[in-house]
């Protein structure tokens, strides 16, 4: 049987401080080689804790996990040879250049100088920073700094890359630059484990994803499979006051807007016609990953004022 890239079995983590916090409640995940797998969850779901355990920075309270067949608990040194990590909210050294990040981090992995130079060049070209390689980080934009950090893990040539919310705080263009670089790496056979709370990101880049909430996996699969976990296939967004909406299906209210979740196209057409008659603007579309996510993590009811 082929060994997967990352596998966790009943992984648990309890933080014992003034109050006990159970950050992971038995997480079991299997990530295949050459796959981009995303952990999607709200803030405090346990994504970073999971990533820190898998990247050998933190010991679990129970269960075990493996990276390329090596236990993160008992074979951490072996695991570290195969991984590279971008932590959440990582900052840059102001006096460092992207070249120094990419080159010196490759050297720290034991790569000889000529090869490290070659890999640094490849990494900086992949993240489109080659022309800015000699500028100090203090003169770079937020997105460029983030890409410099990503270049430092790309140059490492590690088999498994772990990135904790790599695009948080970036604008749309910079975000797409990072996504493009990640997909390019998957194309080269790298395995990527990503965490995010951004639905669009998860949907755009992931081969598979797991929705994590309050320390547990609530759903796992390809984005299309996840969307099929709810029985509704469509959403209709209606601007304005519509009294009997709840009779059509499950609704969520966002201020003066209502979202109605429907199962069939006939139901959608019926609701659109009624809305037009009432002179209300309505738009129909397939359910999004965000709709499914909100429903699975129990957030829908928080907005539902029906």
């Amino acid at each position, binding site marked *: 049987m082929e060994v997967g890239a990352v596998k966790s079995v009943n992984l648990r983590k309890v933080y014992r401080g003034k109050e006990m916090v159970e950050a992971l409640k038995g997480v079991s995940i299997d990530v295949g080689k050459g796959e981009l797998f995303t952990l999607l969850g709200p803030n405090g779901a346990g994504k970073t804790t999971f990533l*820190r355990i898998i*990247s*050998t*920075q*933190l*010991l679990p309270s129970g269960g075990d996990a493996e990276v390329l067949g090596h236990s993160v608990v008992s074979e*951490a*040194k072996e695991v*570290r*040879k195969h*991984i*590279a*990590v*971008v*932590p*959440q*909210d*990582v*900052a*840059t*050294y102001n*006096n*460092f*250049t992207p070249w*120094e990040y990419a080159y*010196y*981090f490759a*050297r*720290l*992995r*034991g790569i000889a100088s000529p090869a490290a130079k070659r890999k640094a060049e490849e990494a900086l070209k992949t993240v489109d920073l080659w022309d800015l390689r000699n500028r*100090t980080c203090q003169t770079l934009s937020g997105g460029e700094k983030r890409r410099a950090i990503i270049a*430092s*893990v790309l140059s*490492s040539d590690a088999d498994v890359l*772990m990135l904790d919310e790599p695009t948080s705080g970036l604008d749309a263009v910079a975000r797409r630059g990072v996504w493009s670089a990640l997909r390019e790496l998957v194309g080269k056979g790298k395995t990527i484990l990503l965490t995010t709370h951004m639905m669009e990101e998860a949907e755009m880049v992931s081969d598979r994803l797991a929705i994590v909430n309050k320390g547990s996996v609530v759903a796992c699969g390809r984005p299309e499979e996840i969307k099929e976990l709810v029985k509704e296939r469509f959403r209709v967004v209606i601007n304005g006051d519509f009294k009997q909406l709840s009779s059509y299906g499950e609704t969520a209210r966002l201020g003066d807007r209502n979202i109605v979740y429907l199962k069939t196209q006939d139901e959608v057409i019926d609701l659109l016609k009624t809305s037009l008659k009432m002179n209300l603007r309505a738009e129909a579309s397939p359910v999004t990953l965000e709709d499914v996510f909100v429903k699975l993590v129990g957030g829908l009811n928080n907005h539902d004022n029906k």
Partner: protein
Amino acid sequence: MTTSKILRDTLIIAWIKSFPDFRRNPMMLVLLAMISAIPLFFMMMFNGGGNMIVHGLVGAMVSSVAFAGVNSGIQDISWDRYVKIREMIVAMPVHPASYALGIALAPLLVSIPSLILFGAITAYLGFFTLEALGWIVLALILVWAATSSMGFMISTYLYKSSPMLLNNFANLLGIGFIFIPPVYFSEAQLGSLSWLSLIVPTSNAAGIMRSYMGLLPFSTEFLIIRWAVLIIMTVAFVVLTSVKSKWREN
């Protein structure tokens, strides 16, 4: 992990944490030298007699390496955790010793120009013999090792402290280890309390250096005791730090 890989990684980390800074802000070298030299100006203004200035130069050399040592531990918890470079390195095939040594070595590299300057002035004044050079360098290395381990040990206790508290703490340690004990002045001035200089690594090393420079008349036996105390304290701090520190959180 091989010894050569550990040593190479140590040098890479030290280089990463020193060279880009002083290459792009060379003025920091001048500022660092000035911090250690400030007490010398006061000595020249208010005294200036006898060998006072040479005692001050010994203090400036010890101060250059001791500041580097104390600050390395503080830097680890305040700066490296802020930029999260430590998290990236923990997840790499890098030995914890490489990281600790690299962090401690980085400020020492930055201090080298100051050390050379103060050493050159001392030599110009005729107090720096080639014969004593080896012993003086050894004493400075031990002070650096002792203060660095002390810095790291303190950092293990102040893991969750704010950067402001840590900076104040580093300044306080600097005063406690460098300006209060007889580092810039001769321990002979303490009279019957001169033995106190033995228990602080910085003043102990300064005393040893002065002895080799002919400024303090130590007997061979007393000099051996001072070396022994300095070495034991350094080893004790290194051992305590390695026992207390954790590479991986739990």
